[in-house]
C-alpha cells in the first residue's frame, strides 16, 4: 500500500459517505426539517455565510482565550507543585474535583456569578480545558532522568537553575501533547457554555446559532453550524499537533508522533 493511497483514503471514504447520504435522503424522500442532505446543508451555509462565520469567530475567540488561560494556569500550578510538596498536597484534590465536575451542571452557576458574559464563557471553557495541560506538565516536570537530577545537585545548581535548565525543558513535550488535548476540550467547553448562556439570552456563538436554528426548525442551518464546529475542532487538533512537532523538531527532539 503506498503512502498516497493511505493519505487519500479518508477523503475518499468521506466523499463516498456524503454521496450515499444525499442519495438515501433523496430516494427515501426524507423532508429537510428531519434530515437534510449534504447539498441542503451547503445551501444553508451559503444563504448566510457571514452570520455563521461571525458566530464561529466568536466561539473561537472564547476557545483560544480559554486555552491560553488554561495553559498558563496549568503551567504555573504544575511548577508550584513541583517546587513544594505542600503546594502539591493543596492543589491535587482540587484539580481532580475540577476535572470530574460536569461542566453542564456548574455552567449556569458560573454564568450567574460571573457578570461579564465573555468572562463567564471563558471561565467555563477553562474549567474543561485545564486538566490535561496541567496534569501533563506536572508529569513532564518530574520526568528528567534521576541521574541528570543528581548531576545538577553535584554541580550545586539551585532550584531556579534546575527548573529552567532541566525540568522545564524536560516538560516541554508533555506540555505540548497536553495542550493539544486541552485545545479540543476548550472548544467543547466554549460550546457547552454557549448552550447554557444562549438560553439565557446573550452571546452569539455557534452554539447559540444551533439553538436558534432549532427553535425555527431550520434544520439544514443547524447542521451547517455543526459542520463548522467539527471543522474548527479538527483544525485546532491538527494545528496544535503540527505546532508541537515543529517546536520539538526545531529543538532537535524526536517528534512525539
Amino acid at each position: 500500500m503506498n503512502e498516497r493511497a493511505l493519505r487519500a483514503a479518508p477523503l475518499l471514504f468521506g466523499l463516498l459517505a456524503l454521496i450515499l447520504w444525499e442519495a438515501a435522503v433523496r430516494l427515501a424522500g426524507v423532508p429537510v426539517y428531519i434530515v437534510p442532505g449534504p447539498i441542503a446543508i451547503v445551501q444553508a451555509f451559503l444563504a448566510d455565510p457571514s452570520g455563521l462565520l461571525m458566530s464561529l469567530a466568536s466561539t473561537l475567540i472564547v476557545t483560544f482565550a480559554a486555552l491560553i488561560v488554561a495553559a498558563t494556569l496549568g503551567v504555573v500550578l504544575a511548577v508550584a507543585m513541583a517546587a513544594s510538596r505542600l503546594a502539591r498536597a493543596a492543589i491535587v484534590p482540587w484539580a481532580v474535583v475540577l476535572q470530574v465536575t460536569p461542566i453542564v451542571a456548574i455552567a449556569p452557576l458560573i454564568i450567574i456569578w460571573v457578570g461579564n458574559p465573555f468572562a463567564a464563557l471563558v471561565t467555563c471553557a477553562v474549567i474543561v480545558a485545564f486538566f490535561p495541560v496541567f496534569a501533563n506538565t506536572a508529569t513532564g516536570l518530574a520526568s528528567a532522568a534521576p541521574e541528570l537530577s543528581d548531576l545538577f545537585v553535584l554541580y550545586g545548581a539551585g532550584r531556579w537553575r534546575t527548573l529552567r535548565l532541566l525540568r522545564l525543558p524536560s516538560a516541554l513535550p508533555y506540555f505540548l501533547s497536553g495542550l493539544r488535548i486541552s485545545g479540543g476540550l476548550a472548544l467543547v467547553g466554549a460550546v457547552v457554555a454557549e448552550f447554557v448562556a444562549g438560553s439565557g439570552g446573550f452571546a452569539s456563538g455557534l452554539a447559540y446559532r444551533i439553538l436558534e436554528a432549532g427553535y425555527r426548525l431550520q434544520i439544514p442551518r443547524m447542521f451547517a453550524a455543526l459542520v463548522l464546529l467539527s471543522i474548527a475542532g479538527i483544525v485546532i487538533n491538527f494545528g496544535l499537533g503540527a505546532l508541537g512537532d515543529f517546536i520539538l523538531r526545531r529543538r532537535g527532539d524526536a517528534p512525539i508522533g
Partner: protein
Amino acid sequence: MLRIRAVGRRFDNGVEALRDVSLDVAQGDFVALLGPSGCGKSTLLRLIAGLDRPDTGGLEWDDGRRTAPGDIGFVFQDATLLPWASAEQNVFLPLRLRGMAWTEAAGAVRATLARVGLEGFEQQRPRQLSGGMRMRVSIARALVTRPRVLLMDEPFAALDEFTRHRLQADLLRVWQDVGCTVVFVTHSIYEAAFLARRVVLMTPRPGRIEREMDSTLVIGPQTRLDPAYTTLVASISRAMEQALTAA
C-alpha cells in the same frame, strides 16, 4: 587524597549496602571498584560524590576542606545528556551551572571535546551521535570543570566490545594527560585489569572490600597482548572466586 574510614550504609528497606568499608585513594591514582551486582560499589561512588551520606564512618579529603561543585566529575552508565542540547551545550552545562557565560567557557568546552576526540561534532544533538560518542560527550562534560576526582559508574557497560576497547584506551590516555584521580566502578575483570593501577575487590551482602591488588601493567598500545595482562586477569579472577566462595 581521599580517606574513607569504616563507612557503613543501610537503606530504608533494610538492605545493608556497605559494611565497614575503608579505602585510601591517592592523588592521581586510577582505582577500579570491582565486584558483582549488589556489592555496594555504586553506593560507595555516590558516597564519594556526596550524593548520599554514610550511616557510620566518614570520608575525609586530605586538605580538610569540603569539595566544591566541579571538584568531582561523575559519569553514569548512561550518557544522560540533555536530549535537546548540542554536544557543545551539554559539555557547557557544568560551567553554566556555576554561572559562567558562554563566551568565557567556549574555549574550555571546545578543548575538552577535542580531548575526547569529538572535534567537528560540537553542534550534533545526542540523538545524532552513536552510543560511544554520546559517552565521550558525557566524559567531556565530567572533565570540563577540571575535577580533582573523576567518578565513573560502569560507563562502558552498555557499549559493544570494539567501542568499549577504544574508549578504554582513550580514557587511559586522557587520564595520563589530565592527571586527575579516577575511581571507576565495573563488574568486568578484564576492564578492571586493563584500566586500573589498583583493583579493589568487593563482595555483596553486605557490601564490603575483600582485597586490594596493585597493577604494574605498562600502559601502551599493546597492553591487551601483553602476557602480564593475561596473568593479571587470571590472578584477579582467582582472588574474586576465593572471595565469593568464602563470603
